[in-house]
């Protein structure tokens, strides 16, 4: 795993090895925070920060961590970072923090974070590890934004809280699709994203 092809490290999590659509990790929060775009983006940034810095820190310590207690060390690092993120959000974006409720705290248990630590940070130098963390957070974020865009547009008729569907359309009899606000629809949307991605990328198709 001692690869230092930086463009691969950065590109893979965005497409061929996307944490949500290919590895199917972090689905729980993806369903919960994608009702609107704004919380989805904040969530995406938070996860990116946590994966990036936990990857960096664990990579710096990788030669000193005894492998028998590595999970505990990883958890301590991740938990401290998540608490930091949570405190920053509470201080500067209190309403959003309330909207995201427990899901910021649950980044600790997000499989993407632990997965990258185990699979990448423990065996790579700090710079690639940092890059890998950013890329995986971004890969997670892209899917969140796509799903939240569709859900907010069709479910509430708005984007970032601004009405984008004109009133004239509502007067003609259009109405918002309430099912988009329910988590099951987010699961179906992620399924559709996976479907489209697989039909486009030959490498992902199982024979």
């Amino acid at each position, binding site marked *: 795993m001692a690869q230092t092809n930086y463009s691969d490290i950065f590109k893979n999590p965005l497409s061929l090895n996307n944490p949500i659509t290919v590895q199917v990790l972090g689905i729980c929060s993806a369903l919960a925070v994608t009702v609107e775009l704004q919380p989805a983006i904040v969530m995406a940034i938070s996860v990116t920060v946590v994966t990036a810095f936990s990857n960096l820190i664990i990579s710096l310590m990788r030669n000193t961590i005894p492998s028998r207690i590595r999970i505990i060390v990883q958890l301590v690092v991740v938990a401290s970072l998540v608490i930091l993120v949570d405190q920053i959000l509470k201080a500067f974006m209190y309403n959003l923090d309330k909207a995201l409720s427990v899901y910021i705290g649950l980044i600790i248990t997000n499989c993407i974070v632990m997965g990258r630590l185990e699979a990448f940070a423990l065996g790579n130098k700090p710079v690639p590890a940092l890059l890998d963390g950013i890329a995986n957070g971004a890969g997670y974020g892209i899917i969140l934004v796509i799903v939240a865009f569709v859900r907010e547009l069709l479910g509430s008729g708005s984007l970032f809280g601004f009405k984008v569907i004109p009133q004239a359309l509502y007067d003609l*009899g259009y*109405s918002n*699709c*309430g*099912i988009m606000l329910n988590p099951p629809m987010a699961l*179906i949307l992620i*399924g559709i994203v996976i479907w489209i991605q697989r039909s486009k990328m030959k490498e992902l198709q199982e024979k």
Partner: protein
Amino acid sequence: MDLRKYLDKIKPNFEEGGKHPGLKSTFEAFESFLFVPNNVTASKGAHIRDSVDLKRTITVVIIALIPALLFGMWNVGYFHHKMTGETAGLWGNFFYGLGQVLPILVVSYVSGLFLEFLFAQIRKEQVNEGFLATGLLIPMIVPVDTPLWMVAIATMFAVLIGKEVFGGTGMNIVNPALLARAFLFFAYPSKMSGDKVWIAGLDGAEKTVDGFSGATPLGELAQNTSWDALTSHYSVSDMFFGFIPGAVGETSTLCILLGAILLIWTGVASWKIMLSGVLGVLFMGLLLNFAGDHIVSSLDPQKDAAKIAEYSYLFVPAYAHLILGGFAFGIVFMATDPVTAAQTETGKWIYGFLVGVVAILVRVVNPAFPEGVMMAILLMNVTAPIIDHIVVRQNVKRRLNRAKASK
């Protein structure tokens, strides 16, 4: 036979290397719709010597649906004219209803078949006849005032997510028509429930007859109307013959029975599912009556009169659940869908029985849903493979035991 000659003439255009090879499945769909295919399964597959193929099965289902559809059209006109206070004869009512239902029917067929043809084309498969029944079922289970664009979106959602992602006709897990209805129900609840949607033109109507209510009998029961108060304006025979408001096809139990007889006689639908479904409803209805007696007997008739009124739904006679709402339609036409129902014979008894039990449980006990048949059938569709699995395992176990004993 000029049509046959014409088809033979244009056929080479759609073969490999012809002018439009991409449209092969479209051509085949129309050819087999017009003529019985004359190709014989040659080298592989079981040789079933029976003329009942998918096309015949679907045709029988459609014929079985016709009485309920025609009656539903008349019913739409009847209640619209009752609301406005006009009198229109048999044909006046029927043609008004035809004008309301036909657009929904056309939209449902066009949007659904468009996707079916598209997918057949992309996957280079034959177009299946399965949607011909689904497309007819959808207009019959939605309120008559459903906006057409909603019907189109729901139909496409059902075909795409309910059927095509699983591999098309015969591979679906839940009934596509019911999925379309469930989508509408959760996406646009204001257009799918309440007491404004069941009568054509009632929402936003300028004048209605004094005291006219568009609520369905089940809607009234969910509002704690007692059974006696309900039967004072809709008699039991009204409910049986279908002179009650409701979704287009579901109102007349009589017409649905005619369809059921045809389906059972031709062997297209399983009588076991229908019978066990009816037994399930009666069982749950009686159980709820019993529970009602038990609860109310512990209350004081004078002091807790308001509380007792809240339990009035529990006292609806069990047989009434069979003729109210969508149960009859659901158990005859939707629950018996051979793709999504249980496959084993014992499994069919369990599956049907549980459809009946869950339908009445949701209908009576959950105030958020005045009707539970849709939920019950969808739930049991998802559960059917588990039922089959258990039945098959039990069978294997029994036969293993027998084999051991004889050793």
